[in-house]
């Protein structure tokens, strides 16, 4: 449905090495919701705006519904108003001088084919009904709360029945509870209509929760592209792993390569990971451990440490455990009665969920920086 080939956007006055979007290739199948996930400045919003035609790409092509809408090499550029799209912006962009209904009717009244006022009204009300706001139709738009305004924006984006729905961080202006509800609503409406959707976000939880496919971006290129569960469970890239908030990163050395997987030595402990590519015996690797990938015990385990800090979340506890010079974040889902600050504990890492990647020069993303990547000294 959407096909981007060699998509490139230069920042004016900068060299080619600092492209906002740098030779991006992406194919988004019909009816799918694809999340563009990455830190700010990674080019995800620029990509979305180029799909919308709000920015012009310097090279590469954009195809929507089998039709090339932008190809600078041929001088092809279809204006935003001629593309079959609907957009929801981060700031809602609800026109404050109109009522809710007028906002939603607008696309039908200005676009082609022109829809009669009565029919436009009916369709706008249908669209508002879909987001549960039909009863607010006659209100002045600024009277609504932020979440309601964003739902109006969604109704407005969909009322023309576009081929493509573009969502530019639609949830980041909303507060927590509202964000989850709005996210679920976007997903349900999207699936109900089967509309091809691009969802730009910097929030990995959002991206994982809502999308069919996640595209992780950094420095204007695609770092990784895959199913949410793949990306989450086995990121194939250090940037992705860091960006997905895997907070414990340890240095290790490959001990042996066996048919079962790769045996990695981390401190005094040995892990066997089935999913390591391109690492031979003696290679330095990074081992990524999620907070929930540890077993915490008072009696035994390969790593010994002290509790420095604990946070109660209701369904779980987060502990910061000092092991040598390293501070590990550990999450435990059953309440460990009697574990207190300063207590001596033992940690066993779970080899099943450990992610082992060949060591790369650190490329910290602007949005997240894990506490430390020094190897454990235990």
């Amino acid at each position, binding site marked *: 449905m959407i096909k981007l080939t060699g998509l490139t956007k230069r920042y004016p006055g900068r060299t080619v090495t600092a492209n906002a979007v740098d030779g991006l*290739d992406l194919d988004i199948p019909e009816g799918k919701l694809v999340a563009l996930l990455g830190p700010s400045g990674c080019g995800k919003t620029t990509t979305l705006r180029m799909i919308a035609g*709000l920015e012009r790409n310097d090279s590469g092509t954009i195809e929507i519904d089998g039709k090339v809408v932008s190809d600078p090499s041929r001088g092809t550029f279809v204006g935003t108003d001629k593309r079959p799209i*609907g957009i929801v*912006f981060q700031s*809602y962009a609800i*026109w404050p001088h109109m009522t809710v209904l007028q906002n939603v009717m607008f696309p039908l009244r*200005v676009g082609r084919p022109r829809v009669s006022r009565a029919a436009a009204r009916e369709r706008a009300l249908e669209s508002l009904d879909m987001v549960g706001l039909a009863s607010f139709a006659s209100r002045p738009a600024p009277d609504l709360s*932020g979440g309601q305004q964003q739902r109006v924006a969604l109704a407005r984006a969909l009322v023309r029945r576009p081929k493509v729905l573009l969502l530019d961080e639609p949830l980041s202006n909303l507060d927590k509870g509202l964000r989850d509800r709005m996210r679920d609503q976007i997903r349900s409406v999207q699936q109900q209509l089967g509309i091809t959707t691009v969802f730009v976000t910097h929030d990995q939880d959002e991206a994982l929760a809502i999308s069919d496919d996640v595209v992780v971006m950094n420095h204007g290129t695609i770092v990784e592209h895959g199913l949410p569960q793949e990306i989450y469970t086995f990121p*194939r890239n250090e940037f992705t792993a860091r960006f997905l908030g895997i907070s414990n990163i340890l240095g290790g050395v490959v001990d042996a390569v066996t048919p079962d997987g790769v045996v990695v030595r981390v401190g005094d402990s040995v892990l066997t990971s089935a999913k390591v590519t391109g690492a031979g015996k003696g290679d330095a690797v990074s081992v990524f451990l999620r907070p929930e990938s540890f077993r915490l015990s008072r009696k035994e385990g390969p790593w010994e440490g002290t509790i420095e800090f604990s946070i109660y979340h209701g369904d779980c506890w987060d502990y910061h455990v000092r092991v040598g010079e390293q501070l590990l974040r550990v999450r435990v889902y059953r309440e460990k009665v009697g574990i207190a600050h300063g207590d001596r504990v033992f940690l066993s890492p779970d080899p099943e969920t450990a992610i082992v990647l060949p060591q790369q020069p650190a490329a910290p993303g602007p949005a997240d920086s894990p506490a430390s990547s020094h190897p454990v000294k235990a």
Partner: protein
Amino acid sequence: MAALDTPTRQDSAPPPRTDGGRWRRLLNGRYLAMTISAIVVAYLALVPVCTMLYASLQSNFLGVGPSSWTLGNFPKTFTTPGFGTLVANSFVYAAATSVICIAVGFGLAWLVVRTNTPCKSFAQAAALVPMIIPGVLNTIAWSLLLSPGQGPLNHVLRAVGLPVFNVYSLPGMVLVQSMHVVPVAFLMGTAAFSAMDSSLEEAALASGASPVRTFFAVTVRMARPAILSAALLMFIQTISNFEVPQLIGVPGHVYVFVSQIYAALQQFPADYGEVGVIGVFVLVIAAVGLYLSRRVVKGRGIQTITGKAFRAQVQDLGKWRWLGFACVVLFFVVAIVLPLAMLLWSSVLPGYESPSLHALHDFTMSNYSDIFRQPSLVKSLKNSLIISVSAGLVVTLLCAVVSYITVKTKVVGRGLLDGLATVPIAVPSVVMGVGILYFYLVAPLPVHLYGTLAILIVAFVTITMPYAMRYIVPGMAAIKDELEEAATSSGASWLQSFWRIFVPLMMPSLLAAFLYSMIVSFREISAAIFLYSSGSEVVSVQIYDLYRNGTYPVLAALGILMVIVLVILVVLVQLASRAVGIKQRR
């Protein structure tokens, strides 16, 4: 990476469609509107300036004999005895006026917009009313009120044992001019304070800053760009104003640039070289000032109208609000009631007499009926109306498109366009009038504008353009890009989104610009006095003629009538603005 591995299947893609050729793209509404506006602005801005520059570099501009290029006018003018005093007078006059106007105008604006000072709508109207008293009338009224011998205010001063205030002096000029320009500062202050997000002030209060501290550390600091650009406008308006230097300065032998230019034009043969040189001198001063204010304001243009609901919170002044109220009332009395009362008094007496109960025995309405007995006066009222409404409409539409170009696009040369639209600020109205007049007399154009109302409309569009831009640009900048993008992505063409999104959202700024341009065109004399001809007289010119002939009573009656017409226009526009304003959350 999955996508990277997917081979691109060229065969499945349909042949790319080229959506219109280059020419068709250039012929759409957006490019057309932008191109035409840019050309019109360049034309309007450059004609008077170039005529003036040309005149300053000609040995015998518009003279009988041959003329050649020369630089001689510059040393000749600069070494004229008294040139130093002329410069000093002009600077003191304009600078003192700007400082007073900023303090009073922004102070009032803050009281009205950001505090709970009582009678807000009254204050808003009161601060607007001086705008509709034409400069000529204001100047004449004050010269009557404060004349050293006869002035009623000086009678009061004498009665309480204070020295008499001689209006025919530099302080007198500053006082009278301030009364005239404060409303402009007030309007700019109102715009600045209304656009300010009050949560910034609330944050300062919550940080433990006292309200006074907050006012100076946050409110004033945020208003600083607006204050600077307003101060600059005051300065330039004052330096190019005609009536105060002419009617008050000249009798007191205080000469400033404008009165010197006028004198140079009045002598025979007129010294166009000197006019050009002083004009260029003022142009340079204004250009430097603009450059400096631009540097300070740069990068401070904050987008404030977002898609989110937005409202300005008012500050509770407690019992101090009555002091604020007193300030507003004092200003109202001084700036409006006194001169209007003076005019009203003069208009109902057969000849000028000091206010007293005894003089009321001569009460008459004959001055008013005299106006309608003179067809030329009635015609001048009609002419003024046509000119002011047309000029207001043209300039508002023009500036709306131009501000779109300069604020919302990345078109090459938009900075130049913005500069061009600002150029007329630096051209004293007198020079503007002469420049336009001689251009249209001399230039080989297919249509002869001289002797028509059109030449006056051209002049007033040019004069008011920079000010209209000052109203419209912040309004344009305040509209978040996403509001237009949402329209475009809804399938709206540029003209549709301009008409249905920008125009309604900017309606307050557009109306302010229209109102201002219309009022200036209705009341201004400085340019009109050179451009009218028999049949195209305007009211302000008629008033000046009556003043020179000493027919004060009819002058006063015509002035009152002029004020009434302006009041009606202003009320109409205000009502219109109330009907279309943004629906705010209450």
